[in-house]
């Protein structure tokens, strides 16, 4: 343990409003900590720059899931276990439920939160490709009120996001219109559990008589932020799935990503696997199988 606990302040205001007041009074001065599965690792390694932390763990306003007719609203403080155990998430948002199931082990799923995954902003974050293809919208909140933004505009660069220094992510909104889509997601990591992904794909598609009607493909760990393959989607929409399309789609997908060499893997491998995953998705779409 390479940090000295006596150098740190941690406060746990009772309720969201109290937290927001604190953040407003000292913008950027307090680091929110929910389940701690990222922050506490940095802290133990002696690599946490913040010295003042505010706990947002288990705040009732953040840890709830609301099912409305057109959308579900997931509180940012919901843990991966909360997501896995929620019937509507399991049934209608399988990409997200699946991502929650392969994030860490059970102990980390009981503490890690969806909001934390978003704000920690790792390019390898497990749940973010799913949010991209579900076209999630985030409700951000501060003492000044709330605002709703499309998730795709939220991450602007590596570890950079459209979040004011006194704002929190409060809710993740998912429109309930994807149950009819074929869902496909796969994580390629160093082992079957507890692995940071080397490449991760989440995809939805609708296909009639072999022709693609609607397709959304997102990849993680191959760019500074998780990305939608918008060019590839454009290329394949309206076309029949045949071997020529698969070849073109692979090439287009690989052209849209910027994988790097790092301690876990390398760019050549990531590119090749990303291309394979895009092809595998389209093959599943063509065969009409759900793969989650």
């Amino acid at each position, binding site marked *: 343990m390479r940090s000295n606990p006596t150098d740190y302040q941690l406060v746990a205001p009772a309720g969201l409003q109290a937290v927001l007041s604190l953040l407003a009074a000292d913008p950027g001065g307090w680091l929110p900590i929910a389940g701690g599965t990222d922050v506490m690792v940095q802290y133990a390694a002696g690599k946490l720059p913040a010295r003042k932390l505010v706990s947002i763990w288990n705040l009732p306003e953040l840890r709830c899931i609301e099912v409305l007719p057109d959308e579900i609203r997931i509180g940012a403080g919901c843990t991966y276990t909360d997501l896995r155990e929620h019937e509507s998430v399991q049934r209608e948002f399988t990409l997200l439920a699946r991502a929650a199931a392969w994030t860490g082990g059970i102990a980390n799923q009981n503490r890690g939160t969806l909001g934390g995954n978003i704000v920690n902003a790792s390019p390898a974050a497990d749940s973010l490709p799913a949010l991209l293809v579900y076209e999630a919208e985030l409700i951000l909140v501060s003492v000044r009120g709330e605002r709703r933004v499309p998730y795709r505009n939220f991450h602007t660069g590596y570890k950079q996001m459209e979040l004011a220094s006194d704002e929190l992510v409060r809710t993740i909104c998912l429109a309930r219109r994807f149950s009819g889509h074929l869902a496909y997601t796969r994580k390629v990591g160093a*082992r079957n559990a507890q692995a940071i992904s080397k490449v991760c794909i989440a995809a939805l598609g609708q296909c009639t008589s072999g022709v693609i009607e609607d397709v959304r493909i997102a990849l993680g760990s191959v760019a500074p932020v998780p990305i939608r393959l918008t060019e590839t989607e454009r290329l394949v929409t309206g076309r029949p799935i045949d071997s020529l399309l698969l070849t073109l789609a692979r090439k287009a997908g690989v052209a849209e990503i910027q994988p790097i060499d790092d*301690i876990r893997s390398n760019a*050549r491998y990531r590119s090749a696997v990303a291309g394979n995953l895009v092809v*595998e998705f389209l093959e599943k779409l063509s065969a009409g199988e759900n793969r989650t």
Partner: protein
Amino acid sequence: MTGERIVGVSVPRKEGRDKVTGHAQYVDDMTLPGMLYGATVRSQVPRGRIRTIAFGPGIAWNEFVVVTARDITGKNVIALIADDQPCLADGLVNHPEEPILLLAHPNRHLLPQAVQAVSIEYEQLPAVFTMEESESHSQIIWGADNTFKTYRVEKGEVDGVWEKADHIVEGEYWTGAQEQLYIENNGMIASFDPQQGITVWGSLQCPYYVHKALMALCNLAADKVRVVQMETGGAFGGKEEYPSMIAAHTALLAIKSGRPVKIIYDRMEDMVATTKRHPSRTRHRTAVNKDGRILGGEIEFTVDGGAYATLSSVVLSRATIHAGGAYYWPNVRIKARAIATNTPPHGAFRGFGAPQSLFALERHMDRIAEVVGLSSIEIRKRNFLKPGQMTTTEQTVREPIDMEQILDRALKLSDYEAKKQRFAKENETSTSKKGMGIAAFLHGAGFTGSGERNLGSVVGVEGCADGRVRVLVSSTEFGQGTKTVLCQIAAEALGLPYENVEIAQADTNEVPNSGPTVASRTVMVVGKLVQSAALGIKQTLVASGLMGDSYSPEEFRAACRSQMATRGSFRSWVRYEAPADVFWDDDKYRGEAYAAFAWAVYVAEVTVDLTSYTASIDDFVAVQEVGKVLHPVLARGQIAGGIAQGIGYTLYEKVIWQNGRMQNGQMTNYIMPTSADLPPIRVFFEEMGNIHGAFGAKGIGELPMDGPAPAILNAAEDAVKVRFNSIPLLPEDIFEALVGDREPHAAGGVR
């Protein structure tokens, strides 16, 4: 007398209850009054001269205890074999993370910042990081030529075989470093008293290794050093020699401060600073006739020992002797070498050189099969050692081992033939390719050659007034079942209930030196001494007329009480004596290398997924002949655990080096298999007995480490028809081999 046999039964683990209730005491669970916490300041350069050491601002240095090489009263060395490794660097540093000075403070939270605040300036010297650089002699970093040790084995006339050969098969094989990754990090507590001397408590395998090292370091007599083993959370060789270093550090701080001192490493420090398995390179050149019989060959084997000699000569020895494996070599030349690089010294890890040389051999056998046009099975059957034949060191195989039968059994259990045929067909159209691979091998138990004679292990068994019996050994428990099996042996020998036998804590004040807990020797060698010592207790009581030759536990208790009343403490001591007909020539490296070999065939069923290029194992069959299974649950647990480590070694565990320093020193980035990654591991035993082992047992702790890597790579090659000669084999490597336009990268441990 108990009617039921104890040996051969899965009796309860002696210390099991404490382990499942959380009451077992590991070193970090213990505190002593007034205890300080210690930390180590380590070199940040791979090689250089220390120019200045500055203690930076912002730290209350007057509250800290500081120890440097100057504080060492004895010799600044960690005594082991060559005695070339300093306890604290004094002037020169030879590897990243080399210890330079020590700090201690009552508040453990202040140490990390204090360590950071010590700034050291170096005059850097050119460093050597790879075997090739070391061999080139462009920089001499150790001795005259960077060479810790060489061995040469010559059998027959190898120079004459080449012209007779129908085929000459060459191959080069690489293995990377591997971290032992015991879940309990290294730790030690030391306390010093001017009258009593130094006491250390710690996580360790070999109390008397630590004892010897502290005597030399602190210039203390044997009775002024006491070493106590605490419950140890995994070791695998990683706590064979390294604990001497951390014990030395805590001892120096305890002596200087006059207070007890505890040092516990965190995971990153343990990974980057302590020993790992030696990386290796093997070059085979083999002369084979058209029937697939080996006529002879040359084997060149090299290990990277890191910056200091430590145990490299012994690792090299075992690797050399195992390099020819379970086959008959009429002619062979083995040239083996351990060389230096500027990396933290590599050290003991389960298998100890044999996994490296056997990996190369078993891959090479499949290569030979391919060249000759025979199957992997047939090539092995035609070359297996048979009773009466001699190994590469000219040790005659005296037991009725039938490797063909073990191989056939393994093939049947794994459904090898049917699967191989089915996979060949299915692979044509599938995006996942499947293959089957085998490895056949042996593992020598006990110390090599004259090693056991030189150790002269001593064991004691004590009778107590209440009829209990205590086993006195320095052999340690760290999960493999030492306490349980040695008590079983004593109980069986005396015909007493298992519950009546206990084993003393491994405390050098209490127990004799039964040798280190290494080399798969504990059950076989030490167990046999325990058996003898236990019988000695019985003989004494019978000879004194205190009980008959056949007795109940109550009669035994009464006899002990009488014996104690007249004679005081009642102990039977036995010292190891080498068998008269066992000869070993240290100069020619020839003769009876080991008192016993265990024999095995492993079969792996592997899938290579061509979307992700990952290899996974769907089934793993392990058949081994082990003399006698003394405790079925423990024995199976040893094999399964060793295979799991072997699977990690092969497919998951890669040390990423940069300028001699491990870059991925966290569990997040150094990947060992989780429960979700391992296949069913199916374990089967055969028992031929062993005259040199307790109740016929052979050592089995390290055997399972030898088979997985070659079996898995043989299967992976069978699956995708690409040659893989290097481990670890990661998906990135499989990808490059299948699709890339470059050669697969050499094993990660090399650079």
